[in-house]
């Protein structure tokens, strides 16, 4: 066995004494990008472990939802007649909402799924929810490709708002998805009920966004309760994304922009992003408070 001798020890007199468990939370996660990359790669292969169709489930799930909404809402409930280019309205909403629900679901389970590592290796546990979010983001890419093709076929005329709205929308959900995953992943370690709760919350999220119904319908039919939707950062992200893709693929984009969107959509978008950042900071504080008790829970 040819082995190089173990290198001489480092000069430890220069190193400070520090708590071995100390970490800077999300800051540490971004400092250790190589480890994050490996965890993301691992998660991509592991999310549909022992599943024959594998990553295809990330498409089957939103596609079946799409066809249900397209048929039930579009044909049975006549949404095709009231909302211009309805399939793209649903599909663009679905992509962005599914990004959030997938992040939330997988993020919540991320620490319990990785208990073998959590119990034995010291690493910032924030790695797991962040990796779950990035994997969901990875799954968005091919869906985006499909959306772009459909948009172009239906006469899409992108503008600056497409870029701003698209980036803003994804940013809001990346931040908010990570924040909620942080809180729920640690809560799920203590009580698995939180995993089940996420399923219910995701259901509310799907119906709380202007995906199967239009903003115009909401304002007219909600009886003054539309703030339940417009006060929700996820719904704002959904509107921004639909502004970027669906609105610009309809026959009369200028008319649609006025009737189907809140008056100050970008301002609402930046407020939503700001609120999501605040939630992320609070989530980090919550996570730091409880994460020390995680290894002993398994």
């Amino acid at each position, binding site marked *: 066995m040819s082995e190089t001798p173990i290198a001489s020890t480092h000069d430890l007199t220069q190193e400070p004494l520090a708590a071995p468990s100390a970490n800077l939370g999300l800051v540490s996660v971004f400092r250790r990008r190589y*480890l994050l990359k490996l965890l993301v790669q691992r998660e991509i292969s592991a999310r549909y472990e022992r599943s024959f169709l594998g990553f295809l489930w990330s498409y089957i799930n939103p596609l079946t939802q799409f066809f249900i909404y397209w048929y039930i809402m579009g044909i049975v409930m006549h949404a095709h007649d009231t909302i211009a280019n309805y399939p793209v309205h649903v599909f663009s909403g679905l992509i962005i909402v599914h990004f959030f629900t997938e992040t939330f679901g997988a993020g919540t389970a991320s620490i319990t799924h990785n208990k073998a590592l959590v119990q*034995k*290796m010291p690493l910032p546990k924030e790695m797991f929810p962040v990796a779950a979010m990035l994997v969901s983001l990875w799954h968005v890419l091919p869906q985006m490709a499909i959306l772009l093709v459909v948009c172009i076929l239906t006469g899409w005329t992108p503008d600056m708002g497409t870029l701003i709205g698209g980036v803003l929308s994804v940013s809001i959900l990346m931040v908010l998805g990570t924040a909620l995953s942080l809180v729920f992943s640690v809560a799920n370690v203590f009580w698995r009920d939180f995993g089940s709760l996420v399923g219910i919350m995701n259901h509310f999220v799907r119906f709380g966004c202007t995906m199967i119904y239009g903003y115009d319908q909401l304002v007219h039919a909600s009886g003054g309760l539309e703030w339940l939707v417009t006060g929700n950062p996820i719904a704002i992200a959904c509107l921004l994304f639909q502004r970027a893709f669906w609105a610009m693929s309809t026959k009369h984009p200028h008319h649609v922009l006025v009737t189907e969107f809140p008056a100050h959509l970008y301002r609402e978008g930046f407020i939503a992003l700001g609120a999501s950042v605040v939630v992320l900071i609070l989530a980090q504080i919550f996570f730091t408070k409880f994460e020390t008790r995680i290894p002993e829970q398994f």
Partner: protein
Amino acid sequence: MTPVIVAENVTKDFVLRRHKTFKKMTVAKMRGEQTVDRFNAIDDVSFTINEGESVGLMGLNGSGKSTLLKLVSGVMKPTKGSLLTRGRIAGLIATGAGFQTQLSGLENIYLNAAIYGLTEKETKAVLDEIVDFADIGQFIEQPVGTYSSGMSSRLGFAIAVHVDCDIFLADEILAVGDKPFKKKCMAKMEEIRDSGRTIVYVSHAAASVQKMCSRVIALERGRLVFDGEAMEGIRFLHYEDDDDGDELGLNDAQLGADV
């Protein structure tokens, strides 16, 4: 000498929930019963380990050795007191190193090394040595889930010893390896010790502790009951009449490799 592990009044409590469900917990609360138990795994332990020392951590099962090692490695945080370290820490905490069962041996090497703080380049530099040392043949390409317990502890040990660390932790690492592998491990550990690194070695085998360590720290129900010279520590624990080795008919050199 530079202190590399400094523990001051370290206490670790575990909170154990007595009731698993909402229903049972509500009933217990209404009856005014306690719903949680506190278990004191480490109780007010203080010690300082200097650079280059090799310390045997001894005690019966459940005395808190693994918990203490988890506190040193940073997997757990003390409930009270402070535990500070200097430099990079590597090693095994119980057998198997938190491997991902669906990943191949090779992929696990990269992941584990990254957790220890190695870059991709650093990992590639020692990859061949790790694979050689683990010596598990073409299984290195297979998912770790298909490994025997011996194979996964071989791989775990191989990774841990090839990390360029300052503090090496070893927790009953040799419990599942076969005799030739145990010998190889002991030789590697001695090499690590002789290179001037700090070692904390958990073992029940008096002979291997005596061979590896100059100092023994003994725990009993979470309390530090002995801290001093190795042979004295073994005598203190009445491990010197340990007849494990005799039973197996090993000579002195082989005793060292026995756990």
